[in-house]
């Protein structure tokens, strides 16, 4: 191993860390009415991060910090996407948080710290670094959920999130220590090598694996570790729910790749975790889709829909090959894209003193604004998986990898529960198009929200008509990184 390690693979993270510190201090000197400066700085930092990731993108994996940190094509793509999504989250949230007294420096700092955590997770090549990133992200998320101090539901949600999250982190850490016990290393590439050679303490390793998978399940929010998802989504302020529900799932996918795909991806071991994944994925599809039907609260409905989507992501990972992982990656990206749109639309319909978080609030949207109704229609059909929206190709890729891996029965279950899921997405279309509006307050979103929301809707359709670039990007980045 070289003694002089390059620093550039970690430039985006280092820069982001520096910017958060600067923003924290700068915010002290900004008056409340000029808070938009902090907002601008945050967006600027993220944009610079995108530039740095882009400029130092690499095809071949580059290791640094004594092999603890890796920069490969997949991490670059995921980081770009994370930063971009956080920028969109910020833009969608700005009017919402401004109207609710949350437009404060802490919000931006916590958001950036969470982003930093995710980026560290994405680039981790060492279980401790992975854990470090995860904890940084989780602790920021707990506090950001509790940011609305005087709201009892938000505090309750944060408490629930924290207690369950701490338990899950504990399990993950315990699993990692077992793995260390079984192999004597925590570095991901070394782990993979040792396991492939078979010179490990097998029973201890399997035991550790179970805890790892449980921790992973919590992070993604799949059954049976899903209890926090609906409560946190519902309790958290809309803007926070938008963030919690979308971007961390990308980091969750990175966790799958780093832990299951790379560290524990050896064939004799993948058989073991695949069995667990099948059970978790199928349960998520069943419980997520069936429970979503009876929800009247939009956030809870989307929470259960998230659970079922994460089930699909696990199904992609199930195949355990390049094909499957790239399907899962594509699915996660598509999920985040559509989820940003759905939650963004909810924020768009909300206004000062009014939370548009019930399904009823979508009634007659087509008569209030045909354009937003059309975007929401595209988003909903994308979530069902109807072509020509991008959601279809996400489902297609996952089903294809499942069939190639020989899971015909699981594929049929996935398909049947997609039909069950179609019902509640269609209900939103029904409310928007077939019912008369009850709320006739005019919709006057800010110009940037208007443009971004239109782009978001257009992306769902354009990537649906031309899915090739995005799919190819996922496939190549997985191929280059595995």
């Amino acid at each position, binding site marked *: 191993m070289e003694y002089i390690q390059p620093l550039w693979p970690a430039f985006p993270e280092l820069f982001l860390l520096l910017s958060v510190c600067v923003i924290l201090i700068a915010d002290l000197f900004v008056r409340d009415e000029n808070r938009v400066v902090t907002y601008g700085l945050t967006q600027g930092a993220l944009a610079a991060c995108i530039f740095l990731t882009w400029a130092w993108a690499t095809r071949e994996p580059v290791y640094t910090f004594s092999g603890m940190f890796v920069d490969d094509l997949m991490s670059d793509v995921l980081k770009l996407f994370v930063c971009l999504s956080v920028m969109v989250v910020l833009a969608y949230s700005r009017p919402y948080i401004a109207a609710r007294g949350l437009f404060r420096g802490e919000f931006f700092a916590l958001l950036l710290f969470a982003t930093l955590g995710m980026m560290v997770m994405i680039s981790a090549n060492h279980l401790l670094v992975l854990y470090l990133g995860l904890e940084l992200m989780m602790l920021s998320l707990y506090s950001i959920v509790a940011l609305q101090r005087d709201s009892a539901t938000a505090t309750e949600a944060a408490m629930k999130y924290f207690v369950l999250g701490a338990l899950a982190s504990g399990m993950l850490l315990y699993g990692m220590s077992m793995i260390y016990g079984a192999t004597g290393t925590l570095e991901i590439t070394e782990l993979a090598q040792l396991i492939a050679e078979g010179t490990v303490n097998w029973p201890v390793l399997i035991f550790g694996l179970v805890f790892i998978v449980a921790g992973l399940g919590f992070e993604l929010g799949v059954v049976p570790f899903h209890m926090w998802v609906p409560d946190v989504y519902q309790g958290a302020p809309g803007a926070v729910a938008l963030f919690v529900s979308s971007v961390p799932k990308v980091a969750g996918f990175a966790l799958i790749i780093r832990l299951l795909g790379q560290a524990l991806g050896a064939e004799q071991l993948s058989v073991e975790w695949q069995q667990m994944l099948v059970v978790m994925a199928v349960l998520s599809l069943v419980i997520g889709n069936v429970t979503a039907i009876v929800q009247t609260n939009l956030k809870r409905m989307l929470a259960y829909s998230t659970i079922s989507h994460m089930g699909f992501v696990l199904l992609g990972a199930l195949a355990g090959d390049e094909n499957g992982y790239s399907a899962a990656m594509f699915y996660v990206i598509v999920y985040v894209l559509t989820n940003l749109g759905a939650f963004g639309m909810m924020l768009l319909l909300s206004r000062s003193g009014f939370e548009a978080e019930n399904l009823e609030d979508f009634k007659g949207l087509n008569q209030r604004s*045909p354009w937003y109704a059309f975007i929401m229609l595209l988003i909903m059909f994308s979530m069902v998986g109807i072509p020509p929206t991008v959601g279809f190709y996400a489902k*297609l890729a996952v089903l294809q990898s499942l*069939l190639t891996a020989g899971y*015909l029965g699981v594929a049929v279950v996935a398909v049947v529960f997609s*039909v069950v899921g179609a019902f509640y997405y269609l209900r939103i*279309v029904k409310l928007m198009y*077939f019912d008369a509006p009850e709320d006739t307050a005019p919709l006057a979103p800010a110009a940037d929200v208007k443009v971004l929301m239109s782009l978001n809707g257009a992306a769902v359709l354009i990537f649906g008509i031309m899915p*090739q670039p995005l799919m190819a990007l996922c496939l190549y980045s997985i191929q280059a990184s595995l």
Partner: protein
Amino acid sequence: MQGSSLLSLAIWVPIVAGFAVLTTGSDRHAGVARIMALTGAILGLLVTLPLYTGFDPNVRGFQFVQLKPWIEVFNVNYHLGIDGISLLLILLNSFTTVLVVIAGWQVIQERVAQYMAAFLFLSGFMNGVFAALDGLLFYVFFEATLIPMFVIIGMWGGPKRVYAALKFFLYTLLGSLLALIALIYLYNVSGGSFSLLDWYQVPLPLHAQILIFLALFAAFAVKVPMWPVHTWLPDAHVEAPTGGSVVLAAIMLKLGGYGFLRLSLPIAPDASQHLAGFVIALSLVAVVYIGLVALVQSDMKKLIAYSSISHMGFVTLGIFIFNAHGIEGAVIQMVSHGFISGAMFLCVGVLYDRLHSRQIADYGGVVNRMPVFATLFMLFAMANSGLPGTSGFVGEFLVVLGAVKVNFWYAFAAATTLVFGAAYTLWMYKRVIFGAVANEHVAHLRDINLREFLVLGLLAIAVLWMGIYPAPFAEVLHASVDDLINHVAQSKIPSP
């Protein structure tokens, strides 16, 4: 190259026109939206005409082929091409779209732009289904049709429209997702190709063929719809606005029949032969039992909906007797049913627009007030019961002829429809049109206006033309149908 982009035009002209219509926005510009929609629909029809004139009926295989890479990761191509079967259906579709736009001219007063755009999208998507030679492209268009139809039924439909729209959507979605699994399976076994032409050649063991056949059957049987998965259709038809019913009956049901011809038969020929008895049994149940069900309906739209199911039973019967008469008859029956059922729904629409009732009991003696309408309705009713000289006769006759060669009793059961069909159609016609003026409302009926006359008149010409001189329709079919039959006759089971 000029010829090869014609199919793309047939698909994209209506879709682009649909977007253009949407931009007119609110109902303040409804007039503009109507004119733009009509222009789009007529342009859509005009670009399909060179397909017919440039079509060479002697060529086997596909014409106007266009092949471009689309999703390289999955080796999916934008692969279009038509044979005689798809040609007729594309023409029928584009023609019907024009009629539907005209038919909705005055009736639709709310959200006109969205109504017109939905039909134009639908028209483009369905042309896409008929022209696709790539499995995934076929599926994308096949599924995409659900979105506009869902919106059409749900937004402009009757009182139970939400229930009907959801039922329609979920029913068909389940079927088509199972078909998707079959398509992915075929992609895997054919070594990573979604091309239908490759799938036609790939050898498959019988058990795999049967599974593929059943999965595809789930999608297409729901669309046709075959007994016993037909129950979504009467609901959808009754609740849909007139235009929706017309497109549903005239074109969307054909997606199922077309799917059998384009996918099921050539990809799984052995399974098709193996399971033909089963499909024929279901078809005959549809023809006879649903015919009887139609007899007792008191709602005109429901009656025509059941009559559609019964007539579509003929199509599936014709397809699965595997001879030239049967399959040609099935295709002709599909086209003719497109004209006739469209016309029947439009006739009911004419009455409904005036009296806002679809109940047979609310009418009687309409002929006294609407003689022109009664004459045209008479023609369509006769065609629906399969009178010689109308298009309804040609298809049914060919199918029965084909069935006799296979089994006399198939033909016998199928031929009963000539009795039942005449019974339910003419009995309805008698109760609605003839007799003394039944009530005050009927007494104030006005006869059809020029717009309605134009629509029904065009359909009447089509029905008579096809009935008296079907050669132009039949001759484009011969080569394609021969090809198909030869293909089905060859076993695809790999020799051990």
